[in-house]
C-alpha cells in the first residue's frame, strides 16, 4: 500500500501526466462507482446549503432572494448575547458528555458479555428483547419513568421505603440536579440493546482462528477479551466514537422535552429545543439558520479534532485509516 501512496503524491503535480492518465484508466471502475454518488451527495446534501444565506436575512418565505432584507450578523449577535443560550449550551454539553460516557461504553460491554454467552438461543433472546425499547417512543418512556419515580405510589420510592433507605418518599423528578442523571439513565436503558448491535457485528467479524490459537496458548477468558475481542472491535469503536464526538452538540430535544417539568427547566432545556422555540416556531428563520450554522461549525471542529487525536493515539481515523 505504501508505494502506491507515494506514487500518488508524486503524480499530484502533473495533472495530465502520462502516469496519471494511465492511473485514471486503471481506476476507471472506481471512478465509475463513485461518480454517481458524488453527484448524489452534491445534489442532495450540498445544494441545499444555499439556505445558509437565510442567517443573514430577515427571511420571509416566498419572497425572492434579492427582495429579502439583509441584516448581516444581527442574529448571531442576538444569540451570543443571550444568557439563556449559554444555559442551554451548558445543559446540552453536560447531557451529551454523560451520554457519551455511559451511552457509548455500556453497549460495548453488553456486546462483549453477550459474546461470552455460549447458549445461542439464550443469547438471541437477550439480543432481541434488549432491542425492543428502541421502538417504544419517548412519550411512553417518559411517562413510565415519571410514574416509577413518583412520590404517589411510585415503584422506586416504594422499594426505597420498604428497605428503609429513605424515610420520606423522594420526589426525584422535582430535583434539578437529578435530571441529567435520570435522562442519561433512561437513554442508556432505551438504547443499550440497539447500540450494541453494531459491536456484535464487529465481534462477528473477528476471525475465530485468533480465539483458537489463544486457546492453544492457554489464555483465560479475560485475556482473550483483552487481547483479541477488544483489539478486534477497536477500529469500529474508534470511528463511532469520533463521529459521536462530532455530534456532542446535536443532542435532539425529544427526551428532555418529554421528561422535564416546570421545576427542572433550568437543567432540562437544551440547544435544539431553544433553536426550535426561538427559530422556526417564532417565524425567525434567520435565527434558526444562524444557530444551525454555529452547530455545524462546532461539530466539524470537534470531529476533525477527535479524528486527529485518534490518529495520533490509536492510529485509527475516519478520513484515512
Amino acid at each position, binding site marked *: 500500500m505504501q508505494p502506491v501512496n507515494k506514487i500518488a503524491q508524486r503524480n499530484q503535480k502533473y495533472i495530465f501526466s502520462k502516469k496519471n492518465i494511465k492511473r485514471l484508466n486503471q481506476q476507471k471502475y472506481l471512478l465509475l462507482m463513485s461518480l454517481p454518488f*458524488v453527484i448524489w451527495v452534491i445534489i442532495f446534501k450540498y445544494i441545499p446549503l444555499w439556505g445558509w444565506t437565510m442567517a443573514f436575512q430577515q427571511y420571509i*418565505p*416566498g419572497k425572492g432572494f434579492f427582495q429579502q432584507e439583509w441584516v448581516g450578523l444581527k442574529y448571531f449577535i442576538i444569540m451570543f448575547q443571550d444568557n439563556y443560550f449559554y444555559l442551554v449550551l451548558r445543559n446540552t454539553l453536560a447531557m451529551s458528555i454523560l451520554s457519551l460516557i455511559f451511552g457509548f461504553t455500556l453497549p460495548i460491554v453488553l456486546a462483549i458479555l453477550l459474546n461470552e454467552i455460549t447458549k445461542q438461543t439464550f443469547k438471541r433472546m437477550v439480543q432481541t428483547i434488549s432491542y425492543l425499547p428502541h421502538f417504544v417512543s419517548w412519550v411512553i418512556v417518559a411517562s413510565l419513568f*415519571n410514574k416509577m419515580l413518583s412520590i404517589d405510589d411510585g415503584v422506586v420510592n416504594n422499594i426505597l421505603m420498604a428497605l428503609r433507605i429513605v424515610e420520606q418518599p423522594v420526589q426525584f423528578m422535582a430535583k434539578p440536579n437529578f435530571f441529567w442523571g435520570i435522562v442519561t439513565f433512561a437513554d442508556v436503558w432505551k438504547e443499550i440493546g440497539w447500540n450494541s448491535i453494531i459491536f456484535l457485528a464487529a465481534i462477528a467479524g473477528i476471525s475465530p482462528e485468533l480465539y483458537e490459537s489463544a486457546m492453544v496458548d492457554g489464555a483465560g477468558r479475560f485475556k482473550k477479551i483483552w487481547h483479541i475481542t477488544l483489539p478486534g472491535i477497536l477500529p469500529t469503536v474508534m470511528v463511532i466514537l469520533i463521529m459521536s464526538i462530532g455530534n456532542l452538540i446535536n443532542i435532539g430535544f425529544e427526551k428532555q422535552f418529554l421528561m422535564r*417539568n416546570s*421545576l427542572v*427547566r433550568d437543567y432540562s432545556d437544551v440547544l435544539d429545543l431553544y433553536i426550535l422555540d*426561538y427559530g422556526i416556531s417564532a417565524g425567525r428563520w434567520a435565527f434558526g439558520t444562524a444557530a444551525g450554522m454555529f452547530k455545524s461549525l462546532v461539530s466539524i471542529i470537534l470531529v476533525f479534532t477527535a479524528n486527529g487525536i485518534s490518529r495520533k493515539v490509536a492510529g485509527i481515523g475516519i478520513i484515512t485509516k
Partner: protein
Amino acid sequence: MKRTLLLILVLVMITLAAGCGPQVTGTQPTTTPAQKGASSDDTAPADAAPEPITFTMYNVETDAYPDTDFSSPVAQEIKKATGVTLEIENAVSSDAGKQKLSLMAASGDYPDFVYGKGDLSILKNVNAIIKLDDLIEQYGPNIKKFYGEIDIKRLRWSLDDPSIYYVGGKEVGQENMEPNAGFQLQLGAVKALGYPRLRTLQDFENAIRTFYEQNPTLYGQKSIPLSLLADDWRFMITVSNPANFATGNSDDGEWYIDIETLDAVRHLTRDEVKEYFRWLNGMHDKGLLDPESFVQKYDQYKAKIASGRVIALADARWEIDEAVTALKKDEKYEAVYGYFPITIDESVKFADFQSAGYLGGWGMAITTNCKDVVRAIKFIDWMCTEEAQILTHWGVKDLHYTIENGKRVLKPEVKEMRNSDPAWQQKTGIKKYCYPFPTYGNAVKDSTGQYFEAFDTLEEIAARQLPIENEVLSHYGVNTWKELYPQADEFPVKPYGAAWLVNIEDPEWKAADDRILKTGYRMIPAIVMGDPSEFDAKWAEYQQALKDAGLDMVTEQFNKVLKERTKLWQ
C-alpha cells in the same frame, strides 16, 4: 487534490444548472381570478346539475379521523348539491401547520382553499390569497346574509388593508351553554359539607380543608386536596388562566384588558393576580396543594382524577373531560365535579360567560392557485345556506335524523355514537364540515324556529346531568351549572373579540412573548412552593425577569395591534 476539486466544481455547476432548471419552468403564469371564473360561469348555471369539480384544501387543525375521499354521507350530500369534492389535508401537529404554510409560501404550491388560523399572514405576505370583497358582492348573497353587517366587519384584514381575505371559521352566534372554566369541587364534598356558600377563594379553601380533614382517604386511596397541572403548555390552563378568571377577566389568554380604556397588560403582572398566587402559596404551605402539582404529567393527573381521590381542581372542562368520563363509567358519581364561579373576593365577578361578539381573525381563504374562483366562492356561498347548515349540523335526513311534528329529532343511535365512538364524525360526516367552514353557533335558530345546534342545546345538557348534579344544583336554587355563574348580559360585549385571536406577525415579538411565557413556567412553581415569608421577594424577582425578557416591547406592540383591531371592527 486540485484535480478532484476541479472535478467537483464542474459537477456542482452541472447539478446547479439541473437543480435550477425546473424552478424556472415551475413558476406558472398566474391568471387573474376573473379570467379563470369566466369559463365556468357559462358552463355551470346555478340551477342545472353542477359539474363535478375537486377542490384541494389545507387545514392547520389536526384531525385524527379525517373524512378520507370525502366519502361520509354528509360529504356525499354536499357533493350532490354543489358538485364539489373536497380533498382536505390536515396538519400533523400544531407546529407542523405553520411549517407547511411557510413551505407553501416558499414554493408557490398552494391548494385551492387554506384555513391557516393566525398564520394565514404567511400566505398573505406573498400575495397568495385573493381579495373576496367583489366576489362576495357578486356571487355571495348568502355569505352576506350569514355574517350580517356587523360580523362581516370583523372579517376585514387590517387598517392598512381593510379588505376581506377570508370567510370566518368561528361560529356565528355562539353562546356558552355550560361553564368552560371555574373552580371544581367534588359533588360528594359539596353534599357532605351541607352545600356551603362557594364564592371566594377563602370559601373554597375552607371547603377543601374541612372535607380533606374528614376524608384522609377516598375510594381506598390517599385523598388529594387540590391538584394542579403544569405539564408544558398546560401550565396556561390550570395555573395561569385560573388566576386571570379569579380576578375577574374573561378568557383573554395571558392578557388582562381593561374594557373601558382597552389598555392591555400581562395579567401575571397585576397585583390582584399576585394575591391569587399568595393564596396558592398559602395552600401549599398548609399542605392543601398536591406536592406533585408542578411535576406530574397529564396522564398521571388524569389517572388521579379518575381514581376519584382529588377533591378540588382549577381547570378547564375539556382538560378533565376524559377523566370524568372514566369516573362516570365506574359509577363514582360523588367524585364528579361541580363548577363554581369563585373569585378572590365578593366584588369580583367570574366572567366566563362574557360575550366576545363574533370572533373574527381566523378563516378560510381562497388562494391565487384556485382552479375556479367563482365555483369556489359559490361553494362557500352554498355552505352558508340554511339547507347546508342543517346538513352539516344534523346530518342526512332519515339517515341521521327524522322529522317528527315538524321538528328534527336525532336518531338515538347517532346520539349514542357521538358519546361512545371517537370516530363518529368521520363515519357520519356530522359536524365535520362546520368549523372551519362558515357555521352557525348554538344560539341560532333556523326559519322554522329550531336550533341549528343538534347536540349541545341547553335542554340536551340539562338532560345529561346526573341525579346527584341535579340534587346539588337544587340546593343552590338553580337547574344548571350555567345559572350559578354571572350571566352574559351582566358584562359588556368585548369590542375586540378575544385577545388570543389577536395576531402579531413580528417574529421578534413572538420570540419575546414566548420567553415571557416560559419565564412564568420556570419561576411560578418555585414561588408557589416556596416559603410564604419569601413570597414577596420572589414575586418581585419574577417581575424583574419578565421585564428582562422584553415585557415592555411585547405589551406596547400588543396594545397597538389591539387598538387598531378595535378601530377596524367598529
